[in-house]
C-alpha cells in the first residue's frame, strides 16, 4: 500500500503528460508525430541533464542553485577555449567537466564541513559562476569548430523526418545512468538515507561527508555536461545563457513527484517533469499567437497543483495505521 503511495506522484505526472500530449494532438492535427517528440527531447536535453543532477541533490535534502550559472560559464568557457585559445573541443570538454567537478566538490565540502545551508552555499556559487563567465566575456561568441558542425549533423534518422540528435541521446543516457545510480546502487540508497535523516545515516556508519561532496560534484558535473550540450545546441557561448535554468530544473523535479524536503522521488518523474515543461513550450510555439510567458504561467500553475497533490498524498500516507501491520509472533 505504501509503495503504491510512493509511486502515485510519478503516475500522476505521467498521466498529466499523456493527457497534455493528447490535448495538443487534438488541437494541432500534425502534433502527434515522432518528429515533435524527438524535437521535444532535443530542445529540452540540457534541462533534462541538469534536472537529473538536481533530483539527486533534492532527494538528499539539499538544493543546488548554481547549475544555471555553471551552464552559462561552460558555454562561455568552451567558446573562448575553442575559438580563441585553440584548444581542441574534446580537450575543452574534459577540462570544463573537471572544473565543474572541482566547483561542485568545493560547494559540497563547504556545506558539509562549514555546516552551512545548501541554499546559501549554492546561491553564492550561482553568483560566483555567473560573475566568472562575465569576467571571461560579455559578448555572445559563435563556435565554428568542425566538431560542432559535425555533431549537430549527426543523428539517428527515424521515419517521418524525425531525428534523434546527439543532445537527445546524451540526455537519454544521463537519465538511464541516473536511474541506475539512484535506484540500484549503495550510493543511491545513501542519497535517500540522507534525505530521510542525516543524523541517523551518520550513526548507521554511512560516510556522510563523502556522500554529500559526491552529490554536489555530480550535480555540478551534470551542469557542465548540460553546458556542453547547450553550446552544441546553440553553437555559441554567452554569459547570459541559461539564466534561471536552476529554477526550471527544480520545477521539473518537483512536478516529477520528488519531495522538496528530501527522501522521496524518482529520476523517471523528473524526466517526465522536463517533458511536461517542454510540452507547454511546444504548445505555445505551435499556437504562434501566444506570448512565451504563458509557458511560465502554465508551469507555475502546474507546480502549485503538484505541490498540493503531494501534500494530500503525504497526509494520507502518514495517517496513523493499525499497529497490526508488524505483528510480532510470540
Amino acid at each position, binding site marked *: *500500500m*505504501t*509503495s503504491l503511495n*510512493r509511486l502515485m506522484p510519478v503516475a500522476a505526472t505521467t498521466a498529466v503528460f499523456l493527457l497534455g500530449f493528447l490535448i495538443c494532438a487534438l488541437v494541432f492535427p500534425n502534433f502527434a508525430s515522432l518528429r515533435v517528440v524527438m524535437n521535444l527531447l532535443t530542445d529540452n536535453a540540457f534541462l533534462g541533464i541538469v534536472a537529473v543532477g538536481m533530483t539527486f541533490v533534492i532527494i538528499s535534502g539539499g538544493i543546488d542553485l548554481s547549475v544555471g550559472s555553471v551552464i552559462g560559464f561552460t558555454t562561455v568557457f568552451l567558446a573562448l577555449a575553442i575559438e580563441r585559445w585553440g584548444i581542441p573541443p574534446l580537450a575543452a570538454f574534459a577540462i570544463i567537466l573537471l572544473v565543474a567537478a572541482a566547483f561542485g566538490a568545493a560547494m559540497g565540502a563547504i556545506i558539509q564541513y562549514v555546516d552551512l545551508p545548501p541554499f546559501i552555499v549554492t546561491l553564492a556559487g550561482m553568483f560566483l559562476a555567473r560573475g566568472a563567465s562575465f569576467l571571461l566575456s560579455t559578448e555572445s561568441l559563435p563556435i565554428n569548430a568542425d566538431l560542432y558542425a559535425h555533431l549537430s549533423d549527426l543523428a539517428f534518422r527515424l521515419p517521418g523526418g524525425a531525428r534523434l540528435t546527439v543532445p537527445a541521446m546524451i540526455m537519454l543516457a544521463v537519465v538511464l545512468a541516473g536511474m*541506475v545510480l539512484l535506484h*540500484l*546502487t*549503495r550510493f543511491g*540508497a*545513501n542519497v*535517500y*538515507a540522507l*534525505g*530521510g*535523516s542525516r*543524523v*541517523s*545515516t551518520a*550513526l*548507521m*556508519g*554511512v560516510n556522510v561527508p563523502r556522500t554529500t561532496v559526491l552529490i554536489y560534484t555530480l550535480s555540478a558535473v551534470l551542469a557542465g555536461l548540460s553546458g556542453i550540450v547547450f553550446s552544441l545546441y546553440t553553437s555559441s557561448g554567452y554569459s547570459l545563457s541559461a539564466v534561471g535554468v536552476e529554477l526550471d530544473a527544480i520545477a521539473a523535479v518537483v512536478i516529477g513527484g520528488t519531495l522538496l524536503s528530501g*527522501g*522521496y522521488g524518482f529520476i523517471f518523474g523528473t524526466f517526465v517533469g522536463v517533458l511536461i515543461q517542454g510540452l507547454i513550450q511546444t504548445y505555445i510555439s505551435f499556437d504562434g499567437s501566444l506570448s512565451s510567458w504563458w509557458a511560465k504561467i502554465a508551469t507555475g500553475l502546474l507546480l502549485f497543483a503538484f505541490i498540493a497533490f503531494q501534500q494530500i498524498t503525504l497526509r494520507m500516507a*502518514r495517517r496513523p*495505521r493499525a*499497529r497490526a*501491520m*508488524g505483528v*510480532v*509472533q*510470540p
Partner: protein
Amino acid sequence: MTPNDTHLLELRGFTKSFAGFPALNGVDFTLRAGEIHALLGENGAGKSTLIKTMTGVVARDAGTLTLAGEAIAPRSAEEATRAGIATVYQEVNLVPNLSVAQNLFLGRQPTRFGLVREREMRRRARELLAGFNLDIDVAAPLESYSVAVQHMVAIARAIDLSARVLILDEPTASLDAHEVENLFAVMRALAARGIGIVFVTHFLDQVYAVCDRITVLRNGRLAGSATTAELPRLELVRLMLGRELSEATATRAPVDRAEAAPVAAFTGFGKAGYVAPFDLALRPGHVVGLAGLLGSGRTETARLVFGAERADCGTATVAGAPVGLAAPREALALGFGYCPEERKTEGIVAELTVRENIVLALQARRGVLKPLSRREQDEIARRFIRLLDIRPPDPERPIGLLSGGNQQKALLARWLATDPRVLILDEPTRGIDVGAHAEIIRLIRALCAEGMALLVVSSELEEIVTYADEVIVLRDRAHVARLTGEAITVPGILAAIADEGAGAAPRAA
C-alpha cells in the same frame, strides 16, 4: 569457561567533565558475556554520559576500556560498532523513508558489479528478522511500521553488525506491555547466544523481570553493583536516591470529604471510534485517576475533556451550565488546564526560557492585546520556581536545558499560573527520575488540597493509588470500571484491567 564468568566489557575509572562540572567520576563497570545488565540512576546520574563515553560519541577524560580482554578506544559510534559495541537508542536511529531491508543493510548491501542485489538483500533481511520472530514485508518503508517493530529492526541491525555488546537506551519507553514482553524474549535469546546487553530503563519492574545484574550510578559516581537476586527493590531505590523513598510509597491518609458539587460533569460523552460514551464528574479537591493499558483510551478521554478532540455525543456541564467544549480555546476559557504526555512535542517550547514557558498559557488566555508586563512575568516565574522547586532556579534559562522532571514542573507551573478549576495531567511522571516522581505526587496532593479538580492519566498504578480519590479503569477505548475509596488498590485496578480474561498480563509499568 562458562559464559557468566567471562568479563566481556570492562570499564575502569571512567571520568568525564563538562565545562569543569564532573559528569562521571571514576566509574567502573563490568559486563559479562550472556548477561543482561541494568544501568540505573536518576536523571543526571551519568547514565547517558557513561554510554556516550563507552561508545566514543563523547571523548572520556580518563579511564580504560577493554572488550574481551583487548583495550579499545573508539572515537565514534561507527568505530564502536566496528569493535562490537552497538547502541540502540530510544529514538530509533534508522532512516524512516528507506525499506526495512535497506535499513538493515545500509552501507553493506550485497552487490554485484556495483549494483545492489535487491532480491538477495530482501532474502537475507527476512532471514535475519525471522531470528527475531518478526515476519514483515521487508520491502516496505520502515516508517510504515510501529515503533516496536522499528526497535526490533534496529536491534537486528546492531546484532548483525557482529555486536558482542548491545546497549539498549530506554527501548521500552514507547512500547506497550505486549511489545515489551517480546523485546524481553529477544533480549533473553541474545543473551543466551553470549551477547552482553546493557539495559537502561526507568521501569524498575522491567529490571527485575529481565536483568541478571544491576549497576547504579548516582551523581556521576558508582553507587553500587549487584546481581538482581541480591538487590531487593527497596535497597535498589535507596541506592538510586541515596535516601528512602518514603513519600512515594506512603499511603494516603483517607480524606472524608462530602461529595462536593462537580465543577465539570460529562454525561454520555464520547466520540465514535475514539472513546465510547462515558460519564465523568470532576469535583473540587478530588483526584480522578485514569488507568488502563497503553491505547486503552486514557489519553483520548483526557483530550475529549479538554476539547482537543471534539465529542460527537453526550453533554458537558461546567458549574451547572451546559458547554460545547469544541476546542481547547473554549476549555481554556472555562478554566481547564492540560499537561500533555508528549512534553517535547506538545508541551514545552524548548528554545524559550523557563519564564516564557510558564507565562505562555496565561498570556494566551489574556489575549495578545493585554500583554503581561515584564515585571508581572518575572513575579509569576519566580513564584512558581520557588513553589515547585524548579532547578536550577533561573527563570531566564532555556527550558530545553532542564532535566525532564524540571520541565514537567515548569509545564505544571504554566497551567497553575492560569489558576485553573480543572487540571488534566497526562502521565505527569513519565520519563522523569524517581526522586522527581515523589515531588510531582506531593504537588498533585497539594493542588487537590487547595480545591482544584484533577484528572490524572498514569501508567504507574502504585502512584495512582497514593493520590486518587476515584479511579476509572479503561479497556479497549471504553470506561469499564469505577473504583472509589477502599477499593482503590493496585490488585484491584489490575483485576479491573484484566477482567473478562483480557489475555495480556497487565503490568504496572
